[in-house]
């Protein structure tokens, strides 16, 4: 068994050709997904989370911000509260569901904007080289020498806390990951045969970039993004812990967790459920991302 795996990996490093029988691509992927237990688990988790994020407001049994003092700190499964109530008597299950969309917004918006900015700068640096490259890469170096979480804190100290500001600061700190990956991809791409021939035949630069470079960047960007989403969702929790996160009463997993941290000894459910939600989501996204990487681009490792 081990023997064969090793050999297979060695002989056939690339995934098998995808469309042998002109099967639609998504079906091939689905078939491969079903075969991978971790990938499938990741996919299912993401599916559930996204559904909750979108339809949450209709699914939540209570108003997430309605405080009912008489019912505060009820343990799970009492009085119609599935996951209990928090320190103000709000239904934790409802807050968790509402928090799903907030956490998803943070994850996806950050990935979107950080990805966009990072990709543009990465392409510019990688394709045009010269001064643009030097400047962008120096900025990247500067950012790298400054711990991510401190950078986010500094920015939030300037612009204040809150949902939008969290996203802004995460984007500000997060685009460099994309810039680095994209730049190195572009550097490799521009030496490829088909690009060189384009250049030789006088195809305009913008056309080369838009039509030939960018489409080839999708795979690494998608893989990277799937992993980054989890990082950002967890980052929100960390920032909340330090007092700059999404501000109460708006529920987000991170601030629920940090609001509940003082109750770890007296009401375990306050800190447990949002924690589990974050862990499960991050786990799902990571597992799916790993699978995606294996399928789409076995060559890309880490970042």
């Amino acid at each position, binding site marked *: 068994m*081990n023997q064969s795996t090793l050999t297979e990996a060695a002989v056939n490093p690339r995934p098998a050709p995808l469309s042998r029988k002109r099967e639609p691509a998504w079906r091939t992927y689905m078939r491969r997904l079903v075969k991978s237990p971790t990938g499938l688990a990741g996919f299912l988790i993401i599916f559930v989370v996204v559904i909750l994020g979108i339809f949450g407001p209709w699914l939540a049994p209570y108003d997430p*911000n*309605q*405080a009912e*003092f*008489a019912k*505060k*700190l009820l343990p799970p499964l009492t009085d119609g509260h599935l996951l209990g109530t928090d*320190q*103000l*008597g709000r239904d934790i299950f409802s807050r968790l569901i509402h928090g799903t969309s907030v956490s998803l917004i943070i994850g996806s918006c950050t990935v979107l904007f950080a990805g966009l900015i990072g990709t543009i700068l990465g392409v510019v640096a990688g394709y045009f080289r010269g001064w643009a490259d030097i400047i962008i890469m120096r900025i990247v170096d500067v950012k790298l020498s400054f711990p991510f979480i401190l950078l986010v804190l500094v920015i*939030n*100290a300037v612009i*204040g*806390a*809150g949902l939008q500001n969290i996203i802004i600061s995460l984007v500000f700190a997060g685009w460099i990951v994309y810039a680095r990956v994209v730049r190195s991809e572009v550097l490799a791409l521009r030496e490829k045969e088909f690009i060189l021939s384009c250049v030789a035949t006088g195809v305009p630069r913008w056309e080369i970039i838009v039509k030939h470079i960018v489409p080839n960047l999708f795979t690494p960007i998608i893989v990277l993004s799937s992993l980054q989403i989890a990082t950002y969702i967890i980052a929100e929790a960390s920032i909340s812990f330090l*007092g*700059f996160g999404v*501000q*109460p*009463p708006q529920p987000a997993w991170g601030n629920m967790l940090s*609001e509940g*941290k*003082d*109750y*770890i*000894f*007296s*009401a375990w459910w306050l800190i447990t459920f949002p924690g589990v939600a974050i862990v499960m989501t991050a786990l799902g996204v990571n597992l799916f991302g790993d699978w995606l990487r294996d399928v789409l681009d076995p060559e890309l490792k880490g970042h």
Partner: protein
Amino acid sequence: MLRKNHLFLLLFICFTVLLAACTPETAGTTPTAPATPQPAGGTENTAAPASVPEELVIGFEADAATMLANTDVNYVTDIQIRNIYDPLIDRDAKGALIPVLATEWKNIDPLTWEFKLRQGVKFTNGEPFNAEAVKFNIDYILDEKNNSFYRSRWKDVKEVKVIDDQTVQVITSQPFPTLLLRIADDLLIMAPKHTKEVGLEKAATDPVGTGAYKFDKWTRDDSLKLVANEEYWQGAPSIKRVTFRIIPEFSARLSAFLGGEIHLFKNVPVDSVERVKSSENGKIELVGSSRINYLALNTFYEGPLKDKRVRQALNYAIDVDELLKSVLNGNGTKMTGPLSKVNADYTETKDYGYDPDKAVALLKEAGIDPKTLKLTLDTPNGRYPMDTHVAQAIASQLQRIGIQVTVQANEWGNHLAKIRQHEMKDMFILGWGPAFDAQGTIENLFTEKAPYSGFYDKDVEAMIQKALPIFDPAERKKAFDELQHRLVEEAAWVPLWQQGDLYAVAKNLQFAPRPDEKFLVFEMKWGQ
């Protein structure tokens, strides 16, 4: 098959190495708890030294900025160094002034105060305590070069005169009715000769005072260690060693307490009180602090709260009793006006009570439909007991009559800056303390120019400015009583409560918490 086993072997070795790396450390740790509290015995401190912990460990949320006295105005510094330095005057449990290094004091005229000093007191390095020492310390505050954060409070002091060894006079440039309070709350006495000899920079990490404890060791952001001053003029302290251990996170403090690593800490969140009580070695002590919490109805913002009727309506619509009971579990004392009952200048004022109908009527009268009213409420995050929760609960109460409240929690520095720069919108939560006199509260929170004020009214301002310089106690009281009634009538705040300070205390420690939030270890003892 064989190869597979080898692989496991490799893995196994790796993990063994890992484990081995940990074991020698873990091995020595089982009895780490530095001082296991003893169940009973040793009621008198020296009776059975073996039965009490060697060292008192106090868990504290932040490190002192410096060991210099009269420099950093933050209470985290003050609380720790007060065990090294003595004040001239202190407060008793009710907030009344009591002599310490000064034995008596009097007013010679409105600009001159005279203090008699205690005889025979020595600093721990042998220097004598005398009038020169008092002069040195007040001059230290006044000297611009020293950059003392206390200086603004002392700016009316013109001169300190040494009359003889035991007598000192403080001359002020204008009547300074609150000088005694400044002396009680701010001034601590450092050893002048030592401080001059080693220089300020060195003295900041090597303090010498007349206090009950001597400085031992200070590891920044980790711990401050003190040892008993056996020669203390009030007698040798009962507890021989004290450590302030810096533990910024509450849950970690509670863990350390439950694990017996620390014996005392302040600010137990109300919902954790039961957890401490149910632990085998802990008890809870509660004291009404002089610190007050309030909801400012900001008149510096151009909004509906400029209208007195709207402010009054909010007073009717917010049920402070319910907030106290449900959010704070009853740990706090309700206030109805700008001063709490422990404040020397307190007078009873009208209580608005909870009356949502009246609130709606008042709003209608002001031409506002509560259903369309949208307000903002700013709160610091974690500065006062349950602050963000109180804010959310207020929002939820106002929602009952239809008012939409957006709660915004701020990081502390941003919160203060927003108040100072008048960037606050409708309402904000703030605490104030120690608040033992009327002037300190009213001058700073209801005048146009004061940085943290949220209220300005021309007539009220005139009343305040007239009251401030009054020196005759009876007249002064009258003026401030009138002001309190006026401020309640104006509904400048929704007064919330006098903060209830909750302390987790080891069962075998005798500790009576103080309204001024101090930890004077000299007053503590081991024993049930």
